């Protein structure tokens, strides 16, 4: 395996990559970093959209529009955008941009891709996992199937979708 408990994780491809990880349940770090990337991407795109609207309004009307992040409608607009971002990504390909970067994807209990209905349910249930200091994410750490609360509600799981063994061979071939 990659690192013995109590030691820092090593650099380079981990020894676990001697086997392909495809289909194995994804761990906490992969899922959390993917989620962080997604939050950054969705926020970044939203801010860009607001800036574009401000610029267009100034060009067309000559008036400046100031955005207050505390405005209810700004928050609502972001919530709608974030919902569309996550739900569409999971329904279309089983992965968001962050998940694609870190090689994980959402599947159903039987291993097939998540349907649109499951994707919507999962997206709506996601805030529930964030409640109580993210208590809903504990299942990723302690559960045998590494499922968060929104996974349980939607009947989904997150698996590794990249071929770790092929990556290791590529790494060795360049060594």
């Amino acid at each position: 395996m990659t690192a013995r408990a109590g030691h820092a994780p090593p650099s380079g491809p981990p020894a676990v990559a001697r086997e392909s990880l495809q289909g194995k349940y994804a761990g906490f770090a992969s899922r959390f970093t993917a989620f962080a990337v997604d939050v950054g991407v969705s926020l970044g795109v939203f801010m860009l959209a607001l800036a574009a609207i401000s610029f267009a309004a100034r060009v067309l009307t000559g008036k400046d529009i100031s955005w207050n992040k505390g405005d209810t409608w700004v928050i609502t607009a972001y919530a709608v955008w974030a919902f569309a971002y996550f739900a569409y990504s999971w329904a279309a390909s089983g992965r968001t941009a962050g998940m694609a970067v870190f090689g994980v994807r959402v599947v159903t209990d039987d291993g097939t891709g998540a349907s649109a209905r499951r994707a919507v349910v999962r997206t709506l249930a996601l805030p529930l996992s964030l409640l109580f200091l993210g208590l809903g994410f504990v299942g990723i750490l302690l559960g045998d199937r590494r499922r968060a609360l929104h996974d349980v509600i939607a009947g989904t799981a997150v698996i590794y979708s990249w071929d770790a063994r092929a990556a290791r061979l590529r790494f060795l071939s360049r060594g």
Partner: protein
Amino acid sequence: MDSFQRQRWADGRLVTRREALAQAVTERAVDLVMSAVDVDELLEQVDLNAVLDQVDINRLLDRIDLDRLLGRMDLNDIVQHIDVDALVKQTDLGAVIAASSSGAASDVLDVLRSQTVGLDEFIARWIGRLRRRPYAGPPGPPDQPPPGAGP
């Protein structure tokens, strides 16, 4: 029972004393001849190329039942003994793999994913230690979907 007496019981039957004596003499004679012959010198005089020229390899191969031969071999055990890492490093296989894969972006992704998986394992090992449950690697469903299965 000496060797002479043992010969009398050859082939599971009691042979005559004369037959046993003849057999013992023959064996002794063969031993003496073999000790007198210089096998190395004999082999030097043999033209192995000429012998091999007379061997019909194709006919020999036709007589080999490859299915039966492979059936008796444990290929999984053989594969387990192959050091794939060393193979990739020391042969052109590595160059083939490198050439078949994409460029720098793919390398960055590989490293990023590998590091994150390493962190996954690091965390999982610590959790296993705290729960006093041995960690045996990333869990997976009993019936894993084929790679790439998706919507």
